[in-house]
């Protein structure tokens, strides 16, 4: 049985200034909405955030940016956010842009006990500057180091009381790898059921990676509503 927090505020209580956090999501899809709001409320600062994107001005990680709680951002695409642009250009915010597949693999490797790996992505570009390049079978690869975090905040559709998680559709994205790469992982789930109610064959994140759970409703804001 895992800790089930009664509020998002309680869940983020151990998160301190200067910590490194992984936050799941692609755009606004699959972000742990209430845990992010609780971080804003707590006012914790100098955070290093590892996440594919940085939300939008009014939602998701954009809210942490607005309150200047982020010191460093490790992401692959941050084009949706005016405040991000302002802070990055003024030098207030440190930014490490990483190819999306490299970012996913850095997190996967971090959770899997692999300190570094070679990938072709970025060879011959400024991303590879200062990094070791090695040739395998006639092709060049760049050495990339893995990532771990003090806390990983992930968003699931369903959790059981053991901490097993199931994600919904493309809200899965970075969440499973982040769950494994956090020293402490908090799963924010739309629904928490009793252990045994989820089909073991359908679990995306096995309970071993999850330390705490929060049941929370999600607004699920849509960035680009596109219909037929």
């Amino acid at each position, binding site marked *: 049985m895992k800790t089930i927090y009664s509020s998002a505020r309680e869940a983020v209580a151990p998160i301190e200034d200067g910590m490194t956090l992984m936050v799941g999501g692609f755009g606004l899809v699959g972000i742990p909405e209430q845990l992010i709001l609780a971080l804003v409320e707590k006012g914790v600062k100098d955070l290093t955030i590892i996440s594919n994107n940085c939300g939008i001005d009014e939602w998701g990680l954009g809210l942490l940016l607005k309150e200047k709680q982020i010191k460093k951002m490790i992401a692959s695409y941050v084009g949706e956010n005016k405040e991000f642009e302002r802070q990055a250009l003024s030098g207030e915010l440190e930014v490490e842009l990483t190819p999306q*597949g490299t970012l996913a693999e850095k997190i996967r490797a971090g959770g899997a006990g692999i300190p570094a790996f070679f990938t072709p992505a970025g*060879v011959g*570009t400024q991303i590879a500057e200062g990094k070791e390049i090695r040739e395998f079978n006639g092709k060049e690869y760049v050495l990339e180091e893995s990532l771990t975090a003090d806390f990983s905040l992930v968003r699931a*559709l369903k959790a059981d009381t053991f901490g097993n998680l199931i994600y919904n559709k493309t809200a899965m994205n970075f969440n499973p*790898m982040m769950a494994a790469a956090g020293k402490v992982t908090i799963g924010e789930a739309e629904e928490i059921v009793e252990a045994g109610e989820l089909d073991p064959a359908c679990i995306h994140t096995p309970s071993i990676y999850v330390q705490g759970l929060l049941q929370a409703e999600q607004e699920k804001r849509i960035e680009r509503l596109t219909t037929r």
Partner: protein
Amino acid sequence: MATANSRELIARRAEKEIADGDYVNLGIGMPTLVANYISPEKTVVLQSENGLLGIGPYPTEDEVDPDLINAGKETVTASTGAAYFNSAESFAMIRGGHIDVAILGGMEVSEKGDLANWMIPGKVIKGMGGAMDLVHGAKKIIVIMDHVSKKGEPKIKKTCDLPLTGKGVVDKIITERGLIEVTPQGLVLKEVFEGYTVQDILDATDADLTIDVRE
């Protein structure tokens, strides 16, 4: 700047590069348009790097699911036979050489097949997203873009001036003017589209071109 007509022409020509049974990744922007022209005679599975194999049409208003988007963050549907997976798996498919064709936009392409499409120094940096991974993994990399920049300057150059997305990665370039193949011997002009001559293309291209146009 490409007009709506030239964008359609480019997208329709790019579609011919896709074979029945192919798994295809379409980049954001003009490449996404290619999906509109995929022949009903072909079974093509579109991959979205945020974790979907089998992008379906845009949803009706009733079908909209906020948890189901493409890599451009647009709401989509999943096609018959689709699969969801995490981002590491998604890029394993990409880097592992399992994607048959990737169609990307471009700012500049060099005569060695270098591609620049992610940043302009001095302008706001948005990030490369999945482009740097995609250019190394897919079996065939096709760049579709306007032949010249908004200022009328050639985008196909001897060497790229902009920061690279990948070195020696492009197989074919399709513009509103023609189709160019990247070969070990350099760039080869293979097709000239209606309304343009070989000379028009040579004039608008900074890189050396070998002409091998099938009549």
